[in-house]
């Protein structure tokens, strides 16, 4: 199946710019596959999405490889997102309208590919091997008055 890999054409500018250090951001979604069936009536939504909005979407996201695959009769319409961390997310879009398919595509684009875990109590995650700028408070080091020693 011939397809256009974004990096191979020189006209598109990739969205990911190399930045030295940890501030470099790499688009987590590497490849997005649209699997569809040409005739199934339950897959009108994905077919109309592929026909029109997908073209603009692919233009706006030059560093994601978009692949459209026509499957055999009777296969489910599926979006498959492959991420740089090696994981993938697969969403069935049977019986979904075109805008619902668009929402699912946005979900894949906004995700980092990490496993879903509870973030309720993870408001602030310290950087690996980082330490607080102010150090750790210690009663022994809490010097209150000049020359009067430490108050515990």
């Amino acid at each position, binding site marked *: 199946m011939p397809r256009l890999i974004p990096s191979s054409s020189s006209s598109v500018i990739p969205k990911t710019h190399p930045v030295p250090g940890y501030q470099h951001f790499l688009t987590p979604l590497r490849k997005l596959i649209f699997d569809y069936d040409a005739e199934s009536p339950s897959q009108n939504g994905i077919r109309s999405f592929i026909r029109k909005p997908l073209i603009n979407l692919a233009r706006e996201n030059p560093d994601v490889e978009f692949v459209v695959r026509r499957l055999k009769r009777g296969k489910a319409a599926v979006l498959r997102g492959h991420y740089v961390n090696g994981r993938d997310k697969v969403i069935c879009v049977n019986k979904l309208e075109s805008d619902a398919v668009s929402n699912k595509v946005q979900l894949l684009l906004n995700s980092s590919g990490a496993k879903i875990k509870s973030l309720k109590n993870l408001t*602030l995650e310290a950087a690996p091997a980082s330490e*607080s*700028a102010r150090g750790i408070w*210690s009663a022994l080091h809490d010097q209150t008055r000049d020359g009067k020693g430490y108050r515990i």
Partner: protein
Amino acid sequence: MPAFARLSVRGLQTTAPLPPPTTPLPPSDGQASVASTSSSASASAAAIAHLPPIVPSSVASSSSFSLPVAPSSTSSAIQHLESQSTPSAGRYVLARLHARTYLLHPRDILTLPTLKPMQPPGTTLSLTKILEVGSRDYAIRSPAASPNLHKRGLDWKEKKLLKLESIPSEIVRCELTVLEHTKDPLIKVDKKKRRKGYKKTIQHKQGYTRLRVGDIHLAQAE
């Protein structure tokens, strides 16, 4: 008085591990004799004299510990901060974001309920309300960074009228990178009333935005 000294050593053992009590205590110098007659605080100080110094040697060498003088101008304050830290290490900001205060260090990952409008991953957002920026020993602090202001005592009207003065963006800048918009796992809550035929399941997925804190840049000191 060795017995007293040993007792105070026991009292300190919860915070600082000491050698087993069988080891003899170091020979006490002139200070210890003074300590035996004066307050118990200096006695315990003498007892732990054989331990590594608590304060850094540079501070301990000067016998009279004096607090550093507050700098007179912003640029000299910035110089103090820069003497101890770099934009990516040893620096922190206290920032206000959606009516909450966060203490942020570079490279931290901050998770918030979905920020709307949803920006695509890779977008950078800059913090506009930075209340404090500091290094290990120094900080540039706005009056709004005082913890007393954020105590629960304020009612909603006072909170609404409260003007939090932030450090101007010319002095300190910090950007957050949007990493992803994700969701919690599905939560199912069962609701049931006895004998009323009422039973339903409430399902919920909370959306979150994950942000990475970038470098903390200070204005160039003249």
